[in-house]
């Protein structure tokens, strides 16, 4: 009976966490350099950007939406800002322009979802295509890759610096996670996002301004995308806009869903994103050391996702008491 009880305590987050620990132990025992401090840091560092984007996705998903334009916003806004610097604009002015572009475009997405009532899947898909197309056609001249200008000042430190021995991307990701955690758990606006994701009509009748709140979610995630872009660009001293056409956005959804955030809204928190991100980090790092092919890596990632969801649905069967429309 004790085993049964322990079994029932499992949920997707815990399963994924245990899986992460298990993989970690297995890799530590079998792979030579896995436990080295340098490797562990690079492990976390390699998923820092993914984690930051995951936080943006979390906020939107909690409000029963989804943001497929995250990666496009990240790439185009930062690439454009860096190009402005190269063209001679002061760094702060250029960065502010980039941030305002990201927030503005996210606000348009938010308005499309909240006021024009376009389903978030379509609105953000269309906006992703629009941002990339418009950015490449009218904002970014030259090749797909915008290189980082030399005179970026301290901003470069965000990608390359260290703080207390930790690479800055990890520090920034941790700080963002803390901010988002505090925002969701302790502020009124955070509570409203959960409320809207849980039950939109009830939130509305209760007097929450539902539409501005929906738009706000996308604006926040747009801002987070800009930060993620800065980290990416300063780490590798360039922003490759073709990242928009990669499957990065699916990885972002993967870490969110893997950690146990409910796509039907209202369920999940920052911890879920961290757990999901770490699993992907450990997995990718271990497989890279083992020299597993990239294509095989994708297969394994997807199998892990399916496994986590299947185990969760066996352990916590959905019945009409706990189920929600649109649940996965």
């Amino acid at each position, binding site marked *: 009976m004790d085993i049964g009880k322990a079994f*029932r305590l499992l949920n997707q987050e815990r399963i994924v966490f245990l899986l992460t620990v298990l993989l970690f132990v297995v890799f530590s025992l079998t792979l030579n350099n896995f436990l080295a401090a340098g490797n562990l840091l690079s492990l976390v560092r390699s998923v820092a950007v993914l984690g930051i984007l995951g936080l943006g996705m979390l906020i939107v998903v909690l409000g029963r939406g989804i943001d497929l334009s995250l990666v496009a916003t990240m790439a185009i806004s930062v690439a454009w800002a860096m190009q402005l610097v190269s063209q001679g604009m002061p760094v702060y002015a250029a960065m502010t322009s980039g941030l305002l572009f990201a927030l503005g475009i996210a606000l348009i997405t938010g308005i499309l979802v909240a006021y024009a009532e376009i389903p978030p899947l379509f609105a953000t898909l269309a906006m992703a295509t629009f941002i990339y197309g418009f950015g490449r056609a009218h904002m970014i001249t030259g090749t797909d890759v915008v290189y980082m200008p030399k005179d970026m000042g301290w901003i470069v430190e965000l990608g390359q610096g260290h703080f207390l021995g930790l690479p800055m991307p990890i520090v920034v990701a941790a700080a963002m996670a803390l901010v988002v955690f505090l925002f969701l*758990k*302790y*502020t*009124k*606006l*955070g*509570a*409203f996002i*959960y*409320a809207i994701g*849980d*039950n939109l*009509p*009830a*939130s*509305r*009748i*209760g*007097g*929450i*301004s*539902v*539409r501005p709140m929906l738009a706000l979610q996308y604006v926040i995630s747009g801002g987070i995308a800009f930060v993620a872009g800065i980290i990416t660009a300063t780490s590798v001293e360039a922003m490759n806009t073709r990242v928009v056409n990669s499957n990065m956005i699916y990885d972002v959804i993967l870490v969110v869903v893997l950690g146990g955030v409910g796509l039907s809204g*209202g*369920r999940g928190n920052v911890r879920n994103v961290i757990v999901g991100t770490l699993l992907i980090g450990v997995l990718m790092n271990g497989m890279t050391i083992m020299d597993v092919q990239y294509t095989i890596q994708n297969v394994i990632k997807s199998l892990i996702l399916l496994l986590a969801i299947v185990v969760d649905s066996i352990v916590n069967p959905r019945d*009409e*008491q*706990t189920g*929600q429309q649109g649940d996965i």
Partner: protein
Amino acid sequence: MTPVLELKTVFKEFHGVAAIRGVDFTLMPGEVHSLLGENGAGKSTLTKIMAGVYEASSGEVLFDGKPRVFGSPAEALHNGIAMVFQETSLIPSLTVAQNIYLGNEKFLNRLRGIYIAAQQFLQSLNFGVDPTMYVSQLGAAQKQMVEIARAVHHKARVIIFDEPTATLTPEEKHHFFSLIKRLKRDGVSIIFISHALEEALEISDRITILRDGQHVVTDEASNFDRDTIISAMVGRTLSEELYSRDRKRTVRPYGRKVLSVQNLSMGKMVRNTSFSVYGGQITGIFGLIGSGRTETAKIISGVIKRDFFHGGEVRLEGRSVRYRVPRPAVKDGVVYVTEDRKIEGFFETKSIAENIYMNLLSADLNKRSVISHSEMMQLADEWTAKLNVKAIDANARVIELSGGNQQKVVIARSLVQLPKLIIFDEPTRGVDVGAIAELHRVINELADAGLAVVVISSYLPEILNLADRILVSRQGRIVEEFSVDEATEEKIMYAAVH
């Protein structure tokens, strides 16, 4: 005669909590068997075990004298056990005929063929539903009819009705009961779950009463009356204090005019309606389903919008208001307590405390943007005590409570917003007898405290018992007003129907 269906000492646990504790039940061929009990007594769970929705934790289910376990509702249906659910299980994007034939389609399924067959079939049941209509276009009562038609069409030998009459008008109820009698003549066994005791008494052969997941009594219906049923259900006699008109009650006088509605219109649902609501008394609005009561209440509280042109006027304390969304209404002290708490009443992933606190936050009453846990718990303790919400503590999730306690939380959510005008839409729907008395007490106290209270109900005894003045709504308009002294059930019903 062997019973069609027999349950022997059935137990059912959810997450270690027993919902059904050792219940025995028999269903004879061709009998109408009512299953009564308060909300949370285990009626729905018990019938869902019969219909294959749940599997019993222990005990036996015998069908035709042989032990059977149905793995799914589909399997049960195939064997002749159909359940008409409380929440409709029809597919909204299909037509009536397609829904009736769902799972029974021929390999080559010609729509025209099933429309003609469905038309004849519905006519034979005396149901006035157009088989080519999409289910999403139907009203609640019509959906219920389609659901029943589907069960009959599947040639079910056992049909379980879970609260079938809650959404029906008197005329439709009449149809429904004659249908039940017909089914019974054809040898179909019927299990009937209802809160309307008179209906159960009228229609059943036998009655089984459950309390707290346990079997209390099973007997011939003729050996029961309203009071014996209620005392068996709740373990005490309180029929007297509820819904008795003999008790002398003092009618509250008119207070100041809080709300005045003139020529309000919205599409075809609300047509040019006018009335006023006064402070310090309860205004009861009676009307049949579809008479525009809910829509009128929702327009006043900003949940839906009135017509842009010729939409009429709403005055709150003399000031003309037009709410596009509920938020300004809430800030002005106008709150609407929904009739459908599961869909728009509370947050199912959240605790009682979080649910109540959320509405304080959304009304901007505590002027803070950071959440205070101690403030939340204090608020929750205060309101759960005031409304007597029965739960382990304020951290329990609302979805786990019984209907009556859920309703109390929904009401607490509205009351923390300090309303001037509060509109209760069917405040006691799906609520057990014990909780009804408590809800009525709360509503009376609000009026005594000087609030303008509106109670919308389609249950006449409730309106007669609560209201200080009674408005009757018909076809989108308030057509008549009665004082408590002159009102009788007959007069009100006459006004609502003609």
